[in-house]
């Protein structure tokens, strides 16, 4: 049933370009106006109309004018609610879209920033099967975060987003498409397992560094310890001098990840392996550099560096 509807929709879009007029990608901000807001009754709206008709015939049959007046009042209120539904969308603008970061296969958090000059309620955004409701308060701004399914690395244009509302009574559904002209970058999916990167030859010779910021332990004073490292309070309790021993986490050797070393594999496999290595390096806090064809990246660490490397990897041809 759902698939049949979807096929019908696609056919309609092909055959009736007027319907699809506003579904081309557009630059933001995208503001909804009367030319692109559609209104249809909901299932409840149709049921309620049938009920109103029954009430109408009943009150006419019994010549009960008070009941007729009530029916007319309810019907007119329902009709007026259609205009309110329209006004809930009219003038709503999608100001920008912020994309989160995600590897292929995991949902990507898309944050849609909506703007409006007046408060609005109960507006819903559909992205694929995901639906999120939001309201805009007096500040005129609202952020809506939706998950976007991803399945392939690289730049992907944003799909179109349906904005709709059944405000205020649920009798009518006003809706419109928004298709922002923007692409999101999806990082490559790391391979599930494989060999570690080849380490430089002088790996084992590096000295352990013991100077750091974090207090590791107290030990007996050895002559030559700086005076400011003496733990005076603890020493006074024990009657002998104790020194504070500072330690820096063991600095792991830097990884130099290189596209050229992975010869004999196809591109996607190389990218997946590099992505895994990058992920491991990032998780271990290890400094790493990345060489890709045409864009060598210097050694570094931290989330910013990781994101830079992954994005470079993602945008490889």
């Amino acid at each position, binding site marked *: 049933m759902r698939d049949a509807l979807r096929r019908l929709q696609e056919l309609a879009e092909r055959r009736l370009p007027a319907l699809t007029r506003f579904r081309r990608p557009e*630059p933001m901000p995208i503001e909804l106006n*009367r030319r692109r807001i559609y209104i249809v009754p909901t299932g*409840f709206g149709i049921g*309620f109309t049938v*009920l109103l008709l029954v*009430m109408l015939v009943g*009150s*006419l*049959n*019994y*010549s*009960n*004018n*008070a*009941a*007729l*007046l*009530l*029916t*007319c*009042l*309810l*019907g*007119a*209120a329902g*009709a*007026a609610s259609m*205009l*309110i539904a*329209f*006004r809930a969308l*009219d*003038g709503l603008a999608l100001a920008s879209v912020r994309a989160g970061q995600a590897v292929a296969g995991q*949902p990507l958090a898309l944050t849609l920033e909506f703007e409006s*000059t*007046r*408060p609005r*309620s*109960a*507006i*819903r955004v559909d*992205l*694929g*099967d*995901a*639906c*999120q*409701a939001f*309201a805009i*308060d007096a500040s005129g701004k609202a952020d809506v975060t*939706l*998950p*976007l*399914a991803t*399945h392939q690395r690289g730049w992907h244009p944003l799909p179109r987003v349906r904005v709709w509302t059944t*405000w*205020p*009574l*649920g009798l009518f559904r006003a809706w419109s498409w928004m298709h922002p*002209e923007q692409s999101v970058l999806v990082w490559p999916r790391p391979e599930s397992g494989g060999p570690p990167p080849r380490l430089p030859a002088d790996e084992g010779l590096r000295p352990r560094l013991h100077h750091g910021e974090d207090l590791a332990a107290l030990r007996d004073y050895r002559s030559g310890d700086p005076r400011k490292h003496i733990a005076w309070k603890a020493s006074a309790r024990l009657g002998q001098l104790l020194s504070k021993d500072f330690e820096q986490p063991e600095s792991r050797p830097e990884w130099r990840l290189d596209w050229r070393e992975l010869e004999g594999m196809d591109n996607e496999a190389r990218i997946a392996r590099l992505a895994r290595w990058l992920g491991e390096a990032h998780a271990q806090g290890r400094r790493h550099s990345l060489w890709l064809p045409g864009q060598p990246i210097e050694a570094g660490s931290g989330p910013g560096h990781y994101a830079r490397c992954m994005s470079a990897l993602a945008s490889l041809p």
Partner: protein
Amino acid sequence: MIGAMRPPSEATLDGRAFDLLCLTMTCVLGVHASHLPWWLVAGLALVLALRWWQRRRHGARPPALLKLPLLALLAVAVVFTYGTIFGQQPGSALAVGLLVLKLLESETPRDARVGVSFACFGLMAALLFDQGLVATFVVALGLLPALATLRALEPAQAPTNLPRALLPGLALLAAAVPLALLAFALVPRLSSPLWGAANSPEARTGLSDRMSPGNFTELLTDDRPAMRVSFDGPAPAPELRYFRAYVMWLYDGRTWEHADLRRADGQARPLETLEARATSRYEIDLEPTHRTVLPALDVPLTAPADAQLSADREVFSDKPVRESLHYTVRSALYYRLQASLPAGARELALRLPQGFNPRTHALAAQWRTRYGGDEQAIVRAALALFHDGGFRYTLAPAPLGRNAVDDFLFGTREGFCEHYASSFTVLMRAAGIPARVVTGYQGGYWNPLGNYLLVRQSDAHAWSEVWLEGRGWVRVDPTAAVRPERVSLGAAAAAGDQLGWTDSGWLASLRNRWDVVNHWWAQGVIGFDALRQRGLLTPFGIRDTGTAMLGMLLAIGTALFVAIGTGWALWRRERPEPLRQALRRLEARLARAGITRRRGEGPQHYLRRAARALPAQRAELEQLMNRYLELRYAHDEPVPELLKEFQRAVREFRPRRVVK
């Protein structure tokens, strides 16, 4: 492909929506409470309150096992009370009960929507029992929680408190009133019902076609309006305000009865002849009586449309009066009715049951021998007896025995109009004077604000007519002999101080005003039937507005309202931001010079490009760009002076196309 994230409200009803739903059901129960048995109302209210408390406290579904017994109990209760589940009363009792039971399983927005829809229907059904002004307003207010419930089902909205949640519904209804009134006036009425007419509740109706001691009591304390009369000319004097409903010939010793009397040969009796001397034309708005009789001022000359005049000059409508009815009659105020009495009618007007009231017969015989053929003297003697015989007017008389008239005349000597009329008529018949009982309304309250006579149920009255040679049927009101105030002031005044407080000044004037409003409602809304609708356009020269015409007017009017509504919906209060507006203007000027802003091109990039394309104005354009960037990004709000400067610079900027 994409993870589903349904808003939580799709799954279960949130607390606010459920509260409002309970309130809606309470309203429905409330507007139906007046005609449901009290124990049913109390039981349903208890179920409602328990369910509300249970969901608030535990938040769980009540066990399904509970629902079926409750449902069965409801059906049994309805059948037990009304004997059936069909018809207006049992049907509405069942509907209200089902609505309340529906709450037990209302857990999702879908349930709530279904519940609200049927609650709207339930509210409407309450109007089948009472379509008065107050009832209609109360029912319309009952729509507020229903609308608020629907609103509360929508996700993501600013939190409000319960009373505030009702306000938007009020605004919506207020906005809907004009269209509703238009539709109300123009929806074509049915001239005859599509299916069976409403089966009428017998309770609390007006005059009955039988009169037995005591059955007026309820009527005489019922202050509801019976009818409103507006006269074309001046209103007749108070002592002439007798409205004739039933003429009663048959007496069985206890009860006077109206019957469709025929002559001995089975033919309908001819209309009693009438010589009129002064006539009055007037219009009556009759409240629903569920009977066919139409009261008319003594004595009607002709029957209004869709009604017949009986031989005794009673007016009977062709159909029972189920909605308030408007009719026009002309009546004779001074008249001679039935100058010559046929033998059959005379025999009927003298008939008394055998073996009743021996003392009354004796008294009548005594008068007959004393006054001989002077029938007027006998009438005077009877009236003198009532006036001087120690009779008392009261609405709570002592009960009477088998010989009711004897007991009354020689025993209790207290009673109200029906006692007097009944015993007077029996006395006359016993004395050989043709006599009959007439019931109807007498008096009424002149409303100076609305220029009409308000006749209440409590103005119901019974009097006698005696036939005198040469004068025909003459109206004699024996009650007036006992309490003249009854005729001039009304039953309440005659009964002493029982209801006297209602006559205090400001309260009376308040009642007047209130009655004018009710009258307006009864005439303009309840009485707006097919006939009045056809005459809707008479002021515009169209005498008969047909269904097609009404449909066309309805379409035009609706289109007009749609246009107004659309205009409102499209009207945008906000003005575009001045800075953006100024930039658009600059863009338009540059576009005329051939430099159009590309899609997605930022203002800085665009103006740089323009500066390169128009080297002669490079400095000017760069200055504009810098100003724009400063206004846009240097401050949260553009500085007004700088903005004005920028706008002026844009106004003055004229791109000059470089000729290469």
